[in-house]
C-alpha cells in the first residue's frame, strides 16, 4: 500500500477505513490498477522518481460526504487533492501536485442541479462535463449554448477554477468570469456559499455574482482554500445565426493596424469571440493544408521581410490573417461583417473572405457536419485526433505542456514577444511546438502559445522542463506572466509574481495557515504551500 509522505501505514489505513465508512468501501481506491487512472497522462516527469502519484483515491457522492472526508483528513493529517473529472491534460491531469496525496475524486458528483433558460444560467456539480451539459440542453431542446474548451470532456467547474477558456462571446468564453456563485467545503469541513448563495432562500444566486461584502470567490480559483462542490454559470442564449469571415493583409507592417482594429471591435463588442492572429505566409494557418513547394522553400530559406512581402503579393498568401466570428440575427451578423470589412478595409490591400454561416437550431445531422464546432458551443474530442501522425506531424508526441504568457494586445507586443523568444530559442538551441502568434482568449490581452512535447525519454523531458523554466524567467523579465501552468512549474511561475518581496505569496500563505492550519488541502497548488512543507517545496 502506498502512503502519503511522512505517514505510517497504520494511521493511513485507519483513515482509509474511516473514508470507507463515509463513502462505502467500493469508493475508496488503493490498488495499483485503480490508482493508475490518477496518473498524469502528460506528465513531464514520465517514469521518473519525481512523477506525481496518488497514494489512494476516494470518490464521494455528495457535499455532506466531502465535508466528512475533510474532517477525517484533518484528524489524521492526510493530504487531500480534489479533482473534478481529472481531465486537465497539459496542466496536471488527475495527479496531485504534492505526490502521495489522496485524490478526492468528485466525478460521482455529476448532477445538473438547475438550468434556467429564461435567465440563461445553470448550477452544476464538479463531475458535470461540457458534454453532459450539452447533452442535457439538446435533450430538453433548450435555447442555450455552452461555451467549451477543446476538448470538451472536462468539467465546467474544473476548467473555470483553472481559468480556462472557450470560443464564443467574451462574457462566456472566460469560464471563470462567467461563473456566478459557489458552494465550497473548507478544509475543516465547514460549508460556505458565496455571492447571493450566502442568503438562505436567495432567488438570484446564479444571476447576481457579488452578494454583499467582500467578493471571496477568487480565493477558490487556482488555489487550495476549499473544495468547490457547486458552481453557477452564466450561459449564452442561442443566437439566431452565426457568421464568420476572414480578414487578410499582405505587408508585415499591417500587423499593427490589424491588431488595433481587432482590439477596437473586441472592446466595443462588435466582434468578441475567441480568435488568433495567424500568418499563412510564415507559419501556415491553423488546420491549413501543407504549404506549396514554393512557399515551403521560402520558409526554409527564411529571407528578409521584403522578399516575404513580395511573395505574399505575387502569390496571394497573406502575411497576416484573422478569422472574425459574429453572433446574432442574420441581419445583425451581416451588418457586423460589413462594418468589419469597412474598418479593416482601411488597411491598404486588405482582402476578405466569407466564412461559415449557420442559422439555429441545427439538426444533429448538421451538427455532425460542422468542422469547427467549438465556436458554436459544441463539444468535441477533435483536438486529440489533430495531434495524430500526419505528413506535417510525422512524430506525434505523448502529450504536451503549454507555455502561454499573457502579453498586451498590440502589434508592438506581438513583435517584441516573437523576437525575444525567437532569439532565445536560437541561443538555447531549442525548437518548441506551435505557432508563435497571439491568441485572443482573455479580454484585452493576447497570449502566446509555445508547446513542448511530452516524451517517454527522461532526458528529453528534463531538457524541456529546463527550457520551460528559462522561458518563465525570460517572460517575467519583459513583464509577461503565465496565466496557468502545469504542477511542475507552479512554483516557478508563482516566483515571478514577486512585487514587494513576494507580498502576494506572503498574503496567500497567511490565508492558507488560517483556513487550512494542518495544510491538508492541495499542498503546493499554484505555489501555495502549507507551513510544514514550505522549506521542502518541489522544484
Amino acid at each position, binding site marked *: 500500500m502506498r502512503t502519503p509522505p511522512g505517514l505510517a501505514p497504520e494511521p493511513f489505513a485507519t483513515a482509509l477505513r474511516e473514508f470507507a465508512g463515509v463513502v462505502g468501501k467500493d469508493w475508496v481506491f488503493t490498488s495499483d490498477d485503480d490508482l493508475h487512472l490518477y496518473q498524469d497522462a502528460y506528465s513531464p516527469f514520465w517514469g521518473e522518481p519525481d512523477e506525481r502519484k496518488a497514494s489512494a483515491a476516494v470518490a464521494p457522492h455528495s457535499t455532506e460526504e466531502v465535508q466528512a472526508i475533510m474532517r477525517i483528513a484533518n484528524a489524521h493529517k492526510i493530504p487531500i487533492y480534489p479533482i473534478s473529472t481529472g481531465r486537465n491534460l497539459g496542466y496536471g491531469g488527475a495527479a496531485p501536485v504534492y505526490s502521495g496525496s489522496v485524490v478526492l475524486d468528485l466525478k460521482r458528483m455529476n448532477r445538473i442541479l438547475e438550468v434556467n433558460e429564461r435567465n440563461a444560467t445553470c448550477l452544476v456539480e464538479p463531475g458535470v462535463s461540457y458534454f453532459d451539459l450539452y447533452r442535457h440542453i439538446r435533450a430538453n431542446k433548450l435555447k442555450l449554448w455552452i461555451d467549451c474548451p477543446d476538448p470538451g470532456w472536462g468539467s465546467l467547474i474544473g476548467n473555470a477554477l483553472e481559468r480556462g477558456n472557450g470560443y464564443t462571446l467574451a462574457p462566456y468564453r472566460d469560464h471563470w468570469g462567467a461563473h456566478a456563485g459557489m458552494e465550497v467545503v473548507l478544509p475543516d469541513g465547514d460549508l460556505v456559499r458565496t455571492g447571493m448563495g450566502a442568503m438562505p432562500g436567495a432567488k438570484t444566486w446564479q444571476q447576481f455574482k457579488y452578494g454583499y461584502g467582500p467578493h471571496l470567490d477568487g480565493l477558490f480559483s487556482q488555489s487550495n482554500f476549499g473544495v468547490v462542490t457547486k458552481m453557477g454559470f452564466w450561459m449564452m442564449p442561442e443566437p439566431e445565426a452565426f457568421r464568420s469571415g476572414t480578414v487578410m493583409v499582405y505587408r508585415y507592417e499591417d500587423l499593427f493596424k490589424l491588431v488595433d482594429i481587432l482590439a477596437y471591435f473586441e472592446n466595443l463588442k462588435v466582434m468578441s469571440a475567441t480568435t488568433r492572429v495567424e500568418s499563412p505566409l510564415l507559419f501556415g494557418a491553423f488546420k491549413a493544408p501543407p504549404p506549396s513547394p514554393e512557399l515551403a522553400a521560402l520558409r526554409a530559406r527564411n529571407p528578409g521581410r521584403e522578399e516575404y512581402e513580395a511573395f505574399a503579393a505575387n502569390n496571394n498568401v497573406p502575411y497576416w490573417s484573422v478569422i472574425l466570428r459574429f453572433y446574432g440575427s442574420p441581419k445583425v451578423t451581416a451588418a457586423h461583417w460589413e462594418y468589419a470589412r469597412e474598418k479593416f478595409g482601411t488597411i491598404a490591400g486588405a482582402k476578405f473572405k466569407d466564412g461559415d454561416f449557420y442559422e439555429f437550431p441545427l439538426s444533429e445531422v448538421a451538427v455532425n457536419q460542422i468542422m469547427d464546432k467549438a465556436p458554436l458551443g459544441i*463539444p468535441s474530442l477533435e483536438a486529440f485526433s489533430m495531434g495524430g501522425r500526419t505528413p506535417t506531424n510525422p512524430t506525434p508526441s505523448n502529450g504536451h505542456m503549454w507555455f502561454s504568457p499573457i502579453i498586451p494586445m498590440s502589434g508592438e507586443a506581438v513583435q517584441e514577444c516573437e523576437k525575444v523568444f525567437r532569439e532565445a530559442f536560437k541561443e538555447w538551441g531549442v525548437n518548441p511546438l506551435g505557432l508563435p502568434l497571439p491568441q485572443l482568449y482573455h479580454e484585452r490581452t493576447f497570449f502566446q502559445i509555445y508547446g513542448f512535447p511530452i516524451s517517454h525519454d527522461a532526458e528529453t523531458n528534463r531538457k524541456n522542463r529546463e527550457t520551460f523554466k528559462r522561458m518563465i524567467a525570460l517572460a517575467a523579465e519583459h513583464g509577461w506572466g503565465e496565466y496557468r501552468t502545469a504542477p511542475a512549474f507552479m512554483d516557478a511561475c508563482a516566483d515571478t509574481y514577486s512585487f514587494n518581496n513576494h507580498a502576494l505569496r506572503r498574503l496567500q500563505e497567511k490565508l492558507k495557515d488560517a483556513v487550512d492550519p494542518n495544510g491538508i488541502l492541495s499542498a503546493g497548488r499554484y505555489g501555495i504551500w502549507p507551513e510544514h512543507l514550505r522549506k521542502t517545496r518541489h522544484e
Partner: protein
Amino acid sequence: MSTRRQFIQTGAALAALGTTSDSIASEPAQVHINLYKVIVDATFAPSLAFGERAAWLGLAAHASPSDVTSLWYHDLHPRWMRSAAPIAGLTSPESLFCLERLAWDHSMRVLFKATHTALPSGEIQHSLMGPRPVVERLAAGYERDPRWASLTADAVGRFPAMRGRSSRRILRTPVGSVDSRFEGTLVSWVIGPVVETVRA
C-alpha cells in the same frame, strides 16, 4: 461511474460475457466476451482488413474517423450508460487514448493492446500486451502468417472472458504483406469490464 467491485457484485459483468464455446476443436472450450462494436478507422489499410475480418466473423464493425466524438456521443455513451459493453478496434493511438479514458468512467479498462509500428525497413514491429494465451496465440500466428491485421481480428473476436496472467511479446512481421501498407503506428485493442482473473 461504478466500481469494478460493484460491477462484479451486481452481476453486470455476466451480461457482458458470451455464452458460446470456442468453435476451434483444438482449443479448450471457454467463454468469450461479446464485443458490442469493433471500431475501424478507414484511413488505414490494416484497419480495413481488420474490420473486414471482424465482419466476416459476425462482429459489428463500425467505421469511425480518428476523432471519436460522434462514435462516443451518439453510440458508446448511451450504450455504456446502460451497462459496460466491451469494444475492440484497430485504430490510431489517439483514438484509443480517448476511448480508454471514456471507458474508465464505466469500469472498463484496456484488456489487450498491440502496438503496430511500420519500420523504415518495411517490416512491422508488434508489441503485444494482454492475457498470455491471447498474446502467445497471436505471436505464433504473426510468425507464420503475414496477415497480421486479420489475425488480430480473429484474436479479439475470441477474447477470453476470464483472463490469465498478463504477458508481453515484441516481434516483427516481414515486408510485403497486405497489412503493411501504412506509416507510423497503429494500435489494436480490447476494452472491457474488469473481471476476476484466473491463473493460467
